């Protein structure tokens, strides 16, 4: 008899989602689906609003990564103003975006995933959470809390507040950086370096015990997409980029499929399919069609598409990372590793930017009216490529908006990853915690950001239902 296992809600991710595992008559996994169950509607309700409000409105999409939306939205608005914003404003926005990488990656790695990594996938769920980490390895928990605090503090120092600041505006930023604030940020850098190096050392030993998981946690062929620095197309000298730059698509063997594409032309290459089981659209690489055009974005993709990071310490770690596999690193388990290397890159770059001579320049905003009726803003959010695309009328009021968020890009890959893990680990009709936790854990690798809500404490109840082909519940497991 065909059966269905539903994991609802998926815990320790940002937002609300559920997973359905479909079993065939023999009890083997036939299919698995990742559903995003919440509907937001931002693209609709911003219609008619002045575009100058967009960065702050769009930042409300998420409480974890408001800065990412601020940056991408402000870039789309810059395109509507059709101005080149002051160089110092670009640097300040970069600083803010990197601080966001530090805090968000720290949240994902330490608060959400380190319980699995420290205690193993089969540990008691009552212990397998951040509080368990605090008990078992307090220094790891302390490092996580401190590192996230540093990222948040930098955002607060730059933008006025930690969550939903409105400092990034169309044309630049609203206030310049002061010398005193620069010193406050610089004073935290040594601490950040010490923590990230300590964590990398710990992780490189810890992940060895997850060989099984690494083999089947989204270890799938796919394309990888992200921004790289501008260079000659196809030449292997592009570096890590998170604010400007061009698109690069790389295939599962590490070959460059498409390079140096203007992000404003994203629609030429990215299509969006809609599946009835989820509110999350499924973007795909148009030339390969749907669903073959599966691609991944985010830390793993970013480290797979570049030829080097561009900072000395991150480059050393990156070289080691890429040696994990010939070509590109395919297993989504390594998103965790990539996240740590990106934190290191971010800390190095924050330090470099703060020491640039023009970082305190008071010229941080370009003023202009409506000079273009359509604008695209693209940046790298911690979870991957973020696209904001607006159309306005002559008055500057929004007539249309489209956004593709990182979690959307990864949708097809997350579905395939869930299926791969379920096929490998859900082998009997008897459900176990460890089995189901692995299905959730592969989703956590992608650190999906499904909305502005977070369940960082791992306290959400988990309900699993076994259903037969007629939809009747034949078994139920509840934890909470």
């Amino acid at each position: 008899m065909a059966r269905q296992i539903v994991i609802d809600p998926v815990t320790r991710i940002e937002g609300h989602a559920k997973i359905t595992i479909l079993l065939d008559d023999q009890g083997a996994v036939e299919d698995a689906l990742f559903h995003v169950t919440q509907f937001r509607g931002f693209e609709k309700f911003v219609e008619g609003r002045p575009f100058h409000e967009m960065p702050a409105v769009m930042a409300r999409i998420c409480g974890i990564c408001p800065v990412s939306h601020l940056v991408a939205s402000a870039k789309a608005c810059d395109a509507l103003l059709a101005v080149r914003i002051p160089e110092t404003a670009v640097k300040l926005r970069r600083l803010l975006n990197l601080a966001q990488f530090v805090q968000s990656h720290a949240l994902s790695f330490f608060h959400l995933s380190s319980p699995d990594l420290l205690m193993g996938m089969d540990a008691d769920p009552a212990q397998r959470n951040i509080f368990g980490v605090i008990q078992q390895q307090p220094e790891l928990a302390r490092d996580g809390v401190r590192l996230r605090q540093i990222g948040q503090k930098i955002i607060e120092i730059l933008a006025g507040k930690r969550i939903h600041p409105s400092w990034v505006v169309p044309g630049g930023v609203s206030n310049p950086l002061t010398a005193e604030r620069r010193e406050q940020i610089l004073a935290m850098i040594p601490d950040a370096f010490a923590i990230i190096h300590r964590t990398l050392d710990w992780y490189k030993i810890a992940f060895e015990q997850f060989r099984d998981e690494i083999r089947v946690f989204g270890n799938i062929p796919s394309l990888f997409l992200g921004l790289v620095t501008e260079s000659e197309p196809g030449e292997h000298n592009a570096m890590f980029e998170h604010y400007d730059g061009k698109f690069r698509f790389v295939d599962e063997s590490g070959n460059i499929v498409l390079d140096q594409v203007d992000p404003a032309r994203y629609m030429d290459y990215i299509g969006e399919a809609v599946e009835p089981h989820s509110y999350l659209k499924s973007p795909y690489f148009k030339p390969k069609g749907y669903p073959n055009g599966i691609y991944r974005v985010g830390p793993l993709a970013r480290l797979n598409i570049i030829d080097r990071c561009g900072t000395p310490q991150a480059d050393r770690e990156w070289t080691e990372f890429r040696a994990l596999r010939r070509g590109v690193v395919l297993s989504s388990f390594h998103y965790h590793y990539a996240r740590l290397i990106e934190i290191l890159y971010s800390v190095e770059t924050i330090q470099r930017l703060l020491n640039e001579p023009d970082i305190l320049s008071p010229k941080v905003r370009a003023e202009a009216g409506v000079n273009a009726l359509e604008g695209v803003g693209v940046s790298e959010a911690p979870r991957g490529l973020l696209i904001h695309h607006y159309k306005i009328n002559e008055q500057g009021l929004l007539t249309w908006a489209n956004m593709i968020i990182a979690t959307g890009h990864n949708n097809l890959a997350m579905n395939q990853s869930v299926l791969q893990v379920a096929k490998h680990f859900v082998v009997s009709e008897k459900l176990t915690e460890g089995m189901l936790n692995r299905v959730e854990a592969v989703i956590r690798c992608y650190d999906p950001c499904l909305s502005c809500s977070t369940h960082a404490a791992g306290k959400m109840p988990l309900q699993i239902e076994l259903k037969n082909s007629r939809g009747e519940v034949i078994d139920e497991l509840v934890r909470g």
Partner: protein
Amino acid sequence: MSPQPVPQVRVVTLKIDGRDVGATEDETILEVARQNGIFIPTLCYLDGLPSIGACRICLCEIKGANKLLPACVTRVQEGMEVTTDSERLTRYRKTIVEMLFAERNHVCAVCVSNGHCELQSMAQKLGITHVHMPYRYPKLTVDATHARFVQDDNRCVLCTRCVRVCDEVEGAHTWDIMGRGIDARVITDLNQAWGDSSSCTGCGKCVHVCPTGALTEKGRSTAEMVKKQQFLQYLMQMREAKQ
């Protein structure tokens, strides 16, 4: 020629919140209260503009009166006993402000006037944490046709400060009210787009006297619109001095 007779204005004494205060009979309760350092909350009132008692936030209890009276338009009388603050008044004031929030789309978090809005600060002062009635979510438009200013009906509380300043101070009478009750709206000229108005001088007085984000300067992002209202009193003083 004999000198003009000086109009006789009688001096009265009254009690406000139990305090004996002196005033002249042409003064309002609000003016006398402020002279004596007694706070009465107001929203549609603005020093320098004629008062209309529209918002009812400044309602006070007057001994012997069978209804509450707005302090901004009620003149003092000999022997009056006024209470400006009581549990009942706070309850009414809170309800009025809650109704203003429920009536239109006041989204403070992303409003250009966030942090500099009189409606928002009034709610904070009154200790409003929730709106206890259902929001109406009306579908209202934004007029951004003017080269320098934006009018957003979503944030308007119909205080008519814009109408009054434009008519009484600027002398243009670009703004007026159209419709009645819940359908009332401020309009420019004969409900034409602001940018097409032939009477608007573009002085910006309406923008700066507006208590909320209903009238703002174009190009302002969230929380960036700071209103400057000192000009009004200065203008009025200069005009009085000339007369």
